[in-house]
């Protein structure tokens, strides 16, 4: 059974190979001007690597362009899970990768970002003449549960909306590894409008939204749903800028400092959020103090990080440390491969020009022989060049996994810092409680010495007890939050380990298979020429 599949694979591959070599040699012979890298069909995700779509290169009958790398993967297919892909190119089989398996599991069948439009900012801003911004059309098809197409939504969003979404998610999903959003670009609007930049951003947005959708928890979030489906203005609270937060905080600080404890306490539900710059100045000071105490005093706080987590955290740091050079070297490798391919093509073209010249001036028989030989080499060089460039396009796709995980490390760090800051809050509150309880004890002790009680002191004690109650509440909230984040961290780490293993393995496999396949093809191109010119070697001996 496997044998038959393999045989079919062989046959179809051979047929495609012949078609391709015919097409290519025609193209090379007739067209000396454009040995431009071949085009890839549009459903191949071009990602960050700009592939110039060649003009009059391989003819449209180019399933040859998607041509399966080689016999290599047909040979190895017994180990592959039977995807029933007998005549689907192994390239497509590779696409049945762990990533696409996750995509299938998400609520959203398909997210696409398209149609960038420039709109004018209808604002009363200080800047005279409207500034412009770009909006993108985001179409989503929801997966209802069956394979049939679910309802489709389309909304228009601008980049600011994406920032809002990202911020709300990072608040709501603390402890999760939230896929990082595309960078803001703080350049002037002139550059922002440029086509390349817009295109780059469009792709980045698409990727970002798809990653969000793939996340088992965030993919089901309301924030994402609202972003993708609600028409009109994005109904999420926008990020407050630092200035207004500072003003807010400045208003509250006096109350906090002058001892109106109860009023000044942060409401318990707010304790769940990290102390934001500006708003919770007092809290920030306290937590900072706690951090210093943790580090410098000999006293260990009663609640600390567990060892297992610290080990895993260290492993993550290690990984990030190694991913950076790996990602860079991958990029350098791709660039080098690209260079070789380009020069090979250039060499072929130069030979073709030489051939043209010699043919015009051809006088001697030996000249004609030489022209024929040169033609073989030129054609081979152009073919090899195209193969290199195709190989590269696939290599980019695979090695991009390294870049992605490097980006994910940022999310990991952020999730860990959520945990750390929550722990710090817990520790701070516990210190607070200790302090408060001590004060109560002291006051009660002092008051008991006075006959009939000390009115003012007892009143103070009541106030303190009230504060303690509020603080205990806050502490419970904080501990709950801390536990929640710990759980999220653990789940995410497990998920990351699993997915990383699969993704890395898939990356390596894809990379290797592509290299093998294309190298074999390139080898056969040159072997033909070597054979055709072998008589010169014999003569020389």
């Amino acid at each position, binding site marked *: 059974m496997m044998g038959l599949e393999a045989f079919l694979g062989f046959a179809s591959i051979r047929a495609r190979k012949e078609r391709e070599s015919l097409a290519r040699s025609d193209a090379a012979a007739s067209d000396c001007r454009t040995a431009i890298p071949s085009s890839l069909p549009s459903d191949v995700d071009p990602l960050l690597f700009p592939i110039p779509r060649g003009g009059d290169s391989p003819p449209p009958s180019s399933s040859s362009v998607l041509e399966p790398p080689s016999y*290599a993967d047909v040979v*190895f297919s017994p*180990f592959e899970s039977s995807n029933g892909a007998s005549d689907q190119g192994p390239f497509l089989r590779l696409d049945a990768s762990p990533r696409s398996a996750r995509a299938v599991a998400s609520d959203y069948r398909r997210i696409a970002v398209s149609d960038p439009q420039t709109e004018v900012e209808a604002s009363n801003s200080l800047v005279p003449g409207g500034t412009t911004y770009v909006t993108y059309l985001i179409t989503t098809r929801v997966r209802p549960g069956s394979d049939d197409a679910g309802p489709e939504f389309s909304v228009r969003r601008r980049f600011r909306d994406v920032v809002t979404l990202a911020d709300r998610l990072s608040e709501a999903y603390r402890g999760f590894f939230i896929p990082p959003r595309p960078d803001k670009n703080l350049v002037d609007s002139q550059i922002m409008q440029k086509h390349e930049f817009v295109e780059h951003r469009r792709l980045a947005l698409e990727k970002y939204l798809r990653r969000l959708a793939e996340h088992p928890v965030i993919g089901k979030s309301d924030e994402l749903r609202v972003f993708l489906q609600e028409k009109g203005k994005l109904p999420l609270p926008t990020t407050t800028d630092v200035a207004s937060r500072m003003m807010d905080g400045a208003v509250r600080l006096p109350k906090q400092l002058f001892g109106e404890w109860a009023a000044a306490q942060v409401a318990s539900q707010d304790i769940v959020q990290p102390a934001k710059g500006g708003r919770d100045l007092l809290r920030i000071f306290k937590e900072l103090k706690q951090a210093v105490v943790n580090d410098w005093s000999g006293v260990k706080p009663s609640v600390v990080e567990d060892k297992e987590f610290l080990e895993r955290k260290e*492993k993550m740091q*290690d*990984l990030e440390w*190694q*991913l950076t*050079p*790996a990602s860079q*070297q*991958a990029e*350098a*490798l791709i*660039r*080098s*491969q690209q*260079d*070789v391919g380009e*020069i090979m093509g*250039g*060499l072929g073209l*130069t030979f073709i020009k*030489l051939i043209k*010249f*010699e043919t015009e*001036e051809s*006088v*001697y028989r*030996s*000249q004609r*022989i*030489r022209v024929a*030989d*040169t033609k*073989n*080499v030129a054609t*081979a060089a152009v073919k090899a060049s195209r193969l290199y460039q195709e190989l590269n396009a696939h290599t980019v796709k695979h090695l991009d996994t390294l870049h992605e995980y490097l980006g994910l490390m940022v999310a990991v760090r952020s999730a860990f810092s959520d945990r750390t800051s929550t722990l710090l809050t817990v520790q701070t509150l516990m210190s607070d409680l200790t302090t408060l309880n001590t004060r109560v004890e002291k006051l009660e002790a002092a008051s008991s010495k006075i006959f009939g009680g000390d009115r003012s002191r007892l009143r103070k004690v009541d106030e303190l007890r009230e504060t303690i109650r509020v603080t205990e509440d806050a502490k419970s909230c904080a501990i709950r939050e801390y536990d929640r984040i710990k759980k999220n961290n653990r789940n995410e780490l497990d998920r990351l380990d699993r997915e990383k293993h*699969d993704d*890395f*393995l898939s990356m*390596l*496999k894809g990379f*290797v298979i592509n*290299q*093998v396949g294309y*190298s074999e093809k390139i*080898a*056969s191109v*040159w*072997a033909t*020429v*070597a054979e055709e*010119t*072998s*008589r*010169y*070697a014999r*003569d*020389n001996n």
Partner: protein
Amino acid sequence: MISPETSPPRSSSQSPRSPPAAPFLYISVTDPVKLGNGVQAYISYRVITRTNLPEFQGPEKIVIRRYSDFVWLHDRLAEKYKGIFIPPLPEKSAVEKFRFSTEFIEMRRQALDIFINRIASHPELKQSEDLRTFLQEDEETMERARSQETGIFKKPADLIQIFKDVQTKVSDVVLGKEKPVEETDPEYEKLKHYIFGLEDHLAETQKQAFRLVKRHRELGQSLSDFGKAMKLLGACEGNSLGKVFSELGAKSELLSIKLQKEAHNLLMNFEEPLKDYVRAVQSIKVTFADRANAFRQHCELAETTKLKEINLDKLNLMRSDKVREAEMEYRELKAESEQATRRFETIVRLMNEEIVRFQEQKTADMGLAFHQFAKGQAKLANDIADAWRSVLPKIEACSVSSHHG
């Protein structure tokens, strides 16, 4: 029957009944050794001649020669054998001389070896006495000969001729810039046009080939760096996936070495032949200049002779007593003119033969270069495929274990 004078070549059988060996002349340039210090450092080569030709002193002779000796030989041949495309020398290199990289030395040695063997296989050039001097004389004689370069021209007329030659070579007379006396042979025009165009195309091709060599080296470097990074990442991952990374990294480093090798092969066996082709074309341009000079001389002398003839007739009619003197002058001039004409015609004849030989030789040379290029690329690609393919079993092992795990 073996004649007692011919000694059989070393490599053939020693049987007394074998027929007299075909004449052969094998030369090899080997063993580059750096001599001297600092600015005066130079490379010396061993030139080994194996032959059964009677003109040579015995079956084998080894001499030590340096680059300027080769230059001497080249210039002598260029002087004596006008019309023949003298095989080109590798470039004088004032700068690289100081660095003397291994690669440079090897490239030069190869080029000199090809140079001397081309001379030895050219039907006319191989008979040159200068060649024999070069191949056989001891180093002192060679040095004397080299320094006597300027002393071989005795007649001032020759000196003036050199002057003119230099002038014309420099001022690009061959392209016919405002020079009155020029050949008008359409076929020759075509040839000139061909050679000039060919030089441009070949130069471009050679540049691309050189860039290709560089890119191979860069790719090799990238693979090495990539391999190291993968190994480190593997150490971080651990267990079976880590092993895959390590294996990948190791193969990557292995391929890096293979790429450097192929870069070297490309340089020696593809880029160098292209460079050699360019040099050969440039040598042809020198012959063009020689031909143009010879043509000009032939025309000028022919004209001068005619004038002298007219003058002579006049004097004869006038029965002047200057007749005898004039007649002698005329006869001298006529002889010179005929000589110039013969020189020119020799050059034309030789060139026609040389062009055919040139085309054939270049087809063979390029054919071989193409073969080496293709073979090298095919081997490289196969090595790459093999190296990566060997990682697959580990990958499969890893995915099987993860499915079961």
